[in-house]
């Protein structure tokens, strides 16, 4: 882990309108993330952890405040710029894996590369890209399932494929939203091993969890409560 700050959030707020009432989920969140750091955002269900993660990863927009990645203000970026950021710089792992059912394991993993490349460029670099996808899947122990469809995989295997997809374009930051939340204890432990292994190799990871045991396995834990972040260790 280096001391170089890669991502910062300052005074971030987010509100949701539910009919007549307005719910203020984030009430001025400040956060900084160093390169190579493994950060856990802990909090109770409904505390706004996932919302904060979505905002940090450019999937959603905040109402006010600023988020800077690598010196650039994400909030001020064009929709196309945010898409490029999500594709090339960030990787995202969802709690429920969210794999495309029509695509097999290899194709799901290749999806970010397909988004990044035009038809011609993809065909030209097809060999290298496929090798990269297979390497990532091999690293995650999924090399024997390349042609399988998501519905033919177990929960743990699906989450490994989701992680492989997130890693495909070698992102600077990996965001994981409750990556073990939908898995049994043993499988969840295996997924945590995978994330730790990636962290050991220098991958910056931001993980959201409501499980304190899981959170303790990271470098740093922040707790989101009442719309504000509190440093734990």
């Amino acid at each position: 882990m280096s001391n170089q700050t890669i991502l910062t959030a300052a005074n971030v707020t987010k509100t949701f309108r539910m009919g007549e009432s307005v719910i203020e989920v984030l009430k001025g969140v400040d956060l900084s993330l160093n390169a190579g750091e493994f950060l856990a955002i802990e909090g109770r269900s409904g505390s706004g952890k996932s919302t904060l993660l979505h905002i940090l990863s450019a999937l959603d927009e905040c109402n006010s405040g600023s988020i800077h990645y690598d010196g650039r203000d994400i909030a001020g970026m064009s929709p196309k710029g945010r898409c490029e950021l999500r594709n090339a710089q960030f990787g995202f792992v969802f709690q429920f894996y969210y794999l495309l059912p029509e695509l097999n394991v290899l194709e799901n993993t290749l999806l970010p590369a397909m988004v990044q490349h035009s038809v011609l460029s993809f065909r030209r670099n097809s060999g290298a890209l496929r090798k990269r996808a297979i390497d990532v899947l091999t690293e995650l122990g999924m090399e024997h399932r390349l042609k399988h469809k998501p519905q033919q995989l177990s929960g743990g295997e699906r989450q490994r494929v989701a992680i492989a997809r997130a890693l495909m374009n070698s992102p600077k930051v990996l965001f994981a939203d409750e990556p073990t939340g939908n898995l049994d204890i043993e499988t969840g432990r295996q997924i945590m091993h995978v994330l730790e292994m990636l962290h050991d190799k220098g991958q910056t990871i931001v993980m959201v969890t409501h499980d304190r045991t899981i959170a303790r396995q990271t470098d740093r834990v922040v707790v989101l409560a009442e719309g504000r972040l509190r440093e734990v260790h």
Partner: protein
Amino acid sequence: MYKLHLILKYLRKRRIAWVSLIAVTLCTAMVLVVISVMGGWLRMFEEKFHGLSGDIMITTSLRGFSHYQEMVDQIEKLPEVVAAAPVIEAYGLLDIGRQKRDGVQVIGYPIDKIGKINKFIDSLYFQHQQYVEAANQPGASSVQKAELLKQARDAAAHASFSFSPLDAATRADLAKRQQRNNWPGMIVGSGVLEIRKDRNGDTVGRELFKYEMPATLVLFNSQAKNLSDPSEITRRAYWIADDSHTGVYQYDGQAIYIPFDIAQQDMGMAAQQVTTADNRQLTQPARTHQIHVKLKAGVEPLAAKDKIREIVDNVMQEARRKDEALAAPLSWTDIVPKVETWRENKAMWIAAVEHEKILVVFLFSMISVVAVFLIFCIFYMIVVEKTRDIGIIKSVGATATGVAGIFLGYGAAIGIVGGGLGFFAGFIIVSYINEIHTALGRWMGIQIWNPEVYVFDRIPSQIDPTEASIIVGVAILSSIAGAIVPAIRAARMNPVEAVRYE
């Protein structure tokens, strides 16, 4: 790359989209068949009717008009003109061998000239078509083919009413028994002789004994005032020289062709001596019903028509002056012939079918709108069903334009595949439409195409490449149009809301 990859995946895996595909296929095939048959009918009408008339037609009522020979001579001197010939068209009663009696359309042709003006000679079986049919037999070698086609050309060049398909001995025997040496020859429409195609497409009914039978034609004087007066009716015996198959039911089923001068004579239209009230002996000029004019290739018919009209007007004016000088109405100068292009002459038919074609295109456009709406509904369902997938694709960096592109491309793919399949199905149906029609008639007793109504004995079976391209193009555009709104909806989705969609 992801757009193409997902489009191809969805095209193969999303079976609900196959409903759109089938709708596009059926619409394309249906429109192609209808447009091809109607457009083909128009083309065939133009080709066949134009083939049986001149480019310019000078016409009048059944009484006919005089001084036609002066007109023909002057018209033929125009640089735009290939040839001009008078034609008589009337109605008569025909009796063939006392076995078949029918009302017929009688056409008087100067056969030595008519080949320069229209394609009538090409329709004669013994004097042209039999050689062409033999040349087109599958077994014919290229040498045989060339020889047979040469024979067809030679026979057509010498086509005449004096021809007979019978051998010399039979002819001599008949001449002795029937005293037919002085009879003129007559060419009859193939349908008049009941020559037709059987269920297998083979020609039946062209037995030679039919050409041995005497044919008697009864014609009425063109100026007849009292049809019960026997002097107003001419009865003449003919032998049947040949049969004509033009492909136009109206002609093949009802028309007979006789020499122009005989028709003129029997209808009282030849030049004749008359005595005026003041006892002067004058010659009443010969008349015809029509003059057909063939123009040189590339000549604009409307421009040539004006020149020909000028000639007709001048000839008639000159005739009127002479008439006035004689102080006797002999020249039929009160009758002013009409000068028209062949298209103007048949405008009523052509306009009716063109209007019908527009109406059918409009009706099928409405059906296509239904197909577009069907595509819209199916795509909307797919977008709703694929909401989470859209969120996933956006989460890995796909732009709104890219997501819209997936669904527009998907629509285009359905249009291309459906339009292509529809074109193929339409092409097969149109190509074998006569065989399909025959089979339907054989198995189910259905006859959709009535040649008496639709003029031709065969359903047009040619596809116009331009029309086919437009139909397939519209199918593709319609499919894209149906996908536009769902694509916009997909593009506008928020990725977080989309992945959470239940």
